């Protein structure tokens, strides 16, 4: 779960990570009131879960109320690469001496947290790693041992931070690690972490990603989720307990098991088609889940044809067929369906479909054959 900047900062604030004063707002009037309260100059920042906000015009510095109003008006509702700005974060603007970078990352390959520190803040860190590897210090922490003072010393000296801020930078790293492990984050990235002219070290920005699977232990964090920018189909699917990812194409996909569904997307693409979604109904899907799936798939207006690709293990193909027949009764789809059911109870499933004799439903025996067929049908239907 990715958090908006201001919500991430709320989590950091619980651990006394140094932050600038700020306030969130979702209307222009609230934004101006917040800016007046903070005092000028003030930074008006778009709250969206995507990088490159500054370049897109989503971050402005206002010197007075009129400017705050102008910028808030412009930025609220702005579309930043598909993310519509629904909230602003207003933050005191200060002079900056240095821009550093700090992060704690869940490194799945090393199976250990990775702590990173660089004096080249404010830039894309992959670019820093490629162009100035010497400016990026990093180390893995044994999660059984935790972040120790020597880790902080190694990172600060190796990165070459200014001597007078070695201590506060190290303290901040230790706090970030504490947040990472206690709040069960998978990413905490502070870019930039700044040094003010008074030599205070402060987290200017914050990108925090929390592990969804741990939210039962962190009810406060579960409440930080927001659906303001969620895709309507993805929202609808999550309400129905389905795993769904919206894609750009026009062929709706239904399958069981993440690997098989990914494979189905690939096979459809290789046949010249473009999938409209990833949908995994999971193991043992019953008729009800199948009706809900069809509902979500068809609610995407781009869908011109649908492919059911099921290999029944725990999932029984006859249940899938029953669900499809039920969905047809309720939703009366106008787009063609290609149905490939293999595995547990596949013979019964094919019999059920033959008896139901649904209009525009085309059974196929193999995955490759089904993909070719659905691509052809989507073209004809376009």
């Amino acid at each position, binding site marked *: 779960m990715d958090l908006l900047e201001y919500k991430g900062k709320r989590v950091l604030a619980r651990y006394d990570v140094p932050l600038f004063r700020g306030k969130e707002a979702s209307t222009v009037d609230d934004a101006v009131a917040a800016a007046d309260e903070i005092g000028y100059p003030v930074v008006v920042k778009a709250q969206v879960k995507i990088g490159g906000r500054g370049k897109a015009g989503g971050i402005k510095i206002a010197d007075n109320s009129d400017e705050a109003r102008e910028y808030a008006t412009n930025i609220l509702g702005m579309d930043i690469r598909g993310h519509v700005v629904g909230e602003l974060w207003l933050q005191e603007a200060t002079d900056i001496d240095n821009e550093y970078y700090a992060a704690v990352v869940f490194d799945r*390959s090393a199976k250990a947290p990775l702590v990173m520190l660089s004096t080249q803040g404010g830039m894309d860190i992959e670019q820093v790693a490629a162009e100035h590897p010497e400016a990026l210090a990093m180390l893995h922490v044994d*999660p059984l041992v935790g972040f120790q003072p020597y880790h902080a010393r190694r990172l600060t000296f190796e990165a070459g931070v200014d001597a007078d801020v070695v201590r506060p930078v190290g303290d901040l790293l230790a706090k970030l690690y504490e947040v990472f492990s206690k709040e069960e984050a998978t990413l905490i990235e502070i870019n930039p972490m700044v040094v003010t002219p008074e030599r205070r070290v402060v987290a200017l920005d914050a990108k925090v990603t929390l592990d969804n*699977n*741990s939210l039962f232990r962190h009810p406060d964090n579960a409440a930080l989720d927001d659906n303001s920018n969620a895709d309507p189909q993805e929202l609808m699917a999550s309400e129905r307990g389905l795993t769904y990812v919206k894609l750009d194409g026009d062929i709706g996909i239904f399958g069981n098991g993440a690997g098989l569904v990914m*494979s189905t997307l690939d096979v459809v693409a290789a046949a010249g088609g473009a999938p409209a979604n990833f949908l995994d109904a999971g193991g043992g899907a019953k008729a009800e889940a199948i009706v809900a799936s069809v509902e979500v798939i068809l609610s995407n207006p781009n869908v011109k044809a649908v492919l059911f690709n099921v*290999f*029944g*293990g725990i999932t029984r193909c006859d249940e899938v067929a029953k669900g499809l027949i039920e969905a047809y009764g309720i939703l009366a789809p106008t787009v063609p369906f290609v149905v490939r059911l293999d595995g547990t109870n596949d013979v019964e499933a094919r019999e059920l479909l033959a008896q139901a004799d649904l209009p525009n439903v085309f059974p196929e025996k193999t995955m490759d054959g089904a993909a070719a067929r659905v691509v052809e049908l989507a073209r004809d239907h376009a």
Partner: protein
Amino acid sequence: MSILVGEDTRLAVSGLTGREGTYHAMNNRRYGTKVVAGVTPGKGGQDVEGVPVFNTFRAAVEATEANTAMIFVPPRFAADSILEAEDAGIATIIAITEGIPAHDELLVFNVLKDNPDVRLIGPNCPGVLSPGKANVGIIPASFFKPGNVGVVSRSGTLTYQIGNELAQEGFGNSTIVGIGGDPVPGSSFVDIIALFEADPETELIVMSGEIGGSAEEEAAEYIAANVSKPVVGYIAGLTAPPGKTMGHAGAIVSGSSGGGQAKIDALEAVGVRVGRTPTQVAEIAMEILGR
């Protein structure tokens, strides 16, 4: 022979008394797996269809000489149950549970890595099947028969799909291992490929990977240096957009890492033939084994 599970498997099931646990453990027993114990705190002394239940893994191991554990408890209890099984001296732990917190998996991995006598398969996996010998987990055994192809996969249904294509071409399997779709699996492709390389029954290895992480690239390096048997690969998720989790918690392309094409390239660079569809995997296997 086979790997990980077989005639010597003596299985203790954590979560045996739950509905799903009972259902799948009894399926495993009907297949011929020796299910010797259940572990449910507070239900020691009871039994499930004749299988005795113990309060702790330690008690279960003492009474039944269980050597394999299947973890079927809900995500919040699963890491603790895995650690308990390890502490009780169980050598093979197979964790089916999906949805274990990532930091719990990190803890488990880092505790177990210092114990050379224990192997964790999963979590979030369908289990391990050695056709004709033993089935631990939820793999539908009826599609598979004994043979010489070892399969290791991050996905359940995709394993069945590929396994079925192989079966239609007349191939059987030494063992089928689901290593699971989570970001921190207990065993990697490398771990399982090493076991297949050492298993005299296995003549060909099929590895089915997917986007996310670098386990396939690490496998490619390992294969180049250590594996004499032919390996056929498959990678799912080539067309998945970056930054989106595709069903499995571990199936995500992040920035420049975890993409499917890079995995295919890494495998092909060391001579592993990679099928572009599950059907192609079976065709390549057939060519290599000469049928």
